[in-house]
């Protein structure tokens, strides 16, 4: 297995992007899941469709919309450009692309975790003097930890594999915005680089296996804790 300095940088960048995207999306995902499970409001169905849309839309479409939004003439792009923080074609754009594409997976898992909490536990907490935000932190958060973890690993894994949206908003600049899938795409286009592509594929597989193992181990630890 041979890895060039560009490959190594792609690996680090992939991990950095996936981790940042997951951490960035986590509080929003948790808040949104809570809103969907525990709150009644008008327009819930619309919100649900919007949240799940990236799951069914081609990533390229999402990338294109992000480009319109974050580009020089986009609503957000203008503001960012004015404040000297261009985002397009930087690793931050890759983070946003990954966060958008993986977000529905995160929300879905956290929702499942929250839905499995017995409503009466929440009622007990409220009647024992806890305000809604107190119940959120002391009951809902710890009891949906499994869902949060499952969602985070799913999102992390999805981010590692993100291609379509990333290539549009972040480009494919080696050493700057080139993640593993983009590097593999480059290698795959030239017949002489099959070994290089295979090396990166192997790295991809190793990272995925590690993510799944960590997920399983943490899940087991949670089970053991709740069985005490």
């Amino acid at each position, binding site marked *: 297995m041979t890895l060039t300095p560009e490959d190594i940088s792609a690996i680090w960048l992939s991990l950095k992007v996936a981790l940042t995207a997951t951490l960035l999306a986590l509080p929003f995902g948790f808040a949104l899941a809570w809103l969907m499970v525990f709150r009644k409001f008008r327009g819930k169905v619309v919100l649900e469709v919007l949240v799940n849309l990236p799951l069914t839309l081609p990533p390229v479409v999402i990338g294109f919309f992000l480009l319109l939004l974050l580009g020089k003439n986009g609503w957000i792009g203008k503001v960012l450009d004015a404040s000297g923080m261009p985002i397009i074609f930087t690793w931050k754009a890759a983070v946003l692309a990954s966060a958008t594409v993986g977000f529905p997976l995160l929300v879905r898992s956290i929702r499942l975790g929250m839905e499995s909490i017995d409503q*009466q*536990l929440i*009622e*007990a*907490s*409220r009647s*024992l*003097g806890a305000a809604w935000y107190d119940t959120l932190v*002391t009951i809902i958060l710890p009891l949906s930890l499994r869902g949060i973890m499952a969602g985070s690993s799913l999102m992390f894994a999805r981010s590692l594999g993100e291609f379509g949206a990333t290539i549009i908003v972040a480009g494919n600049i080696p050493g700057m915005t080139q993640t593993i899938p983009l590097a593999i795409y480059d290698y795959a286009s030239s017949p002489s680089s099959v070994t290089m592509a295979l090396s990166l594929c192997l790295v991809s597989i190793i990272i995925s296996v590690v993510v799944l193992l960590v997920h399983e181990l943490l899940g087991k630890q949670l089970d053991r804790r709740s*069985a005490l």
Partner: protein
Amino acid sequence: MNLRIDAEKKQGSFLLQLKADVSGDRIGIFGQSGSGKSTLVHLISGLLQPDRGEIYLNDECMFSSVKGIDLSPERRRIAIVFQQAMLFPHLSVKANLLYGYRRCHAENRRIKPEALIALLKLQPLMQRGVHNLSGGEKQRVALGRAVLANPRLLLMDEPLSALDDTLRFQIIPYLKSVSEEFGIPYLFISHSILEMQLMTDRILVIRNGRMDETTTPDQLARNSMADNPKGYLNLLHLADPVLQNGLYAYSWGRNSLLISGGGADRASLFELSSREIILFKKHPEAISARNLLHCTVTEMFESDGRVGIVLSVNGEKLVAEIVRSAADELDITIDSPLFAAIKASSFRKLA
């Protein structure tokens, strides 16, 4: 405690429309499942908002659609004991117990954890995880948790329904003692007449989402005599038995009762169905039933074609149940002298 409620809540096709004003420390809410008891618990505790109306607890407004008041559940200080213990699975027994206590303002902390732990005998459970408790232990911890929140009202929402008979009668003394010891009034919600008789003084009967009547446990038991498979349940608190020829002899006022299912415990609670009592106009010469009591009719009541005969046995009260034709044939009237025969095996020990 005074609870004043005049509220309406529509849930799907079910409409709860309640108007009641009750005072007392041991109030029961009786109704069959689907009658709206649970919705009422939610309305009183603030977990659900009425569509319109008002709820007052001790003259303090909890909810009023006219005044635009809706006190949040945590500010109402009404703790709930659920049918299932509902202990927080990620917390220890101790953390569960103190959950409400820690959130209670210092000036309201009347009940101290040490006193409650001693009363409910929770000390041996403190170091255990909530998953390692039996059903009865869980319910005791749940009760302790609710009481330690120092509520001004305890809502007991069918707290005994999920327990088997043995456990149920083990928990009842705890439920009663915490309320008496710490002076916390409670609303006891149940569909069991026996539990109503044991736990309450006044009862609101709910039927199909509406207030049916306000009654006493005894009156409720009388009204339901014909429908209840066990008839009217006579409850006898008996103590200090003496073993006589394999049967336990208990003194009951100035009478003596022979009971086969007694026990060595100092004090026991027995139930005796009104249908297990056979009445004789004259002394039966020879009879296999081990208890033959000389009594006088003090009162008679009707319940759906059945006649309830309230008997005075040397000052002690017993209710027997016979059919109308038997009452006519025996020509039973108030003050009639009668003999009541009860088999030693007819008494069921509850606790």
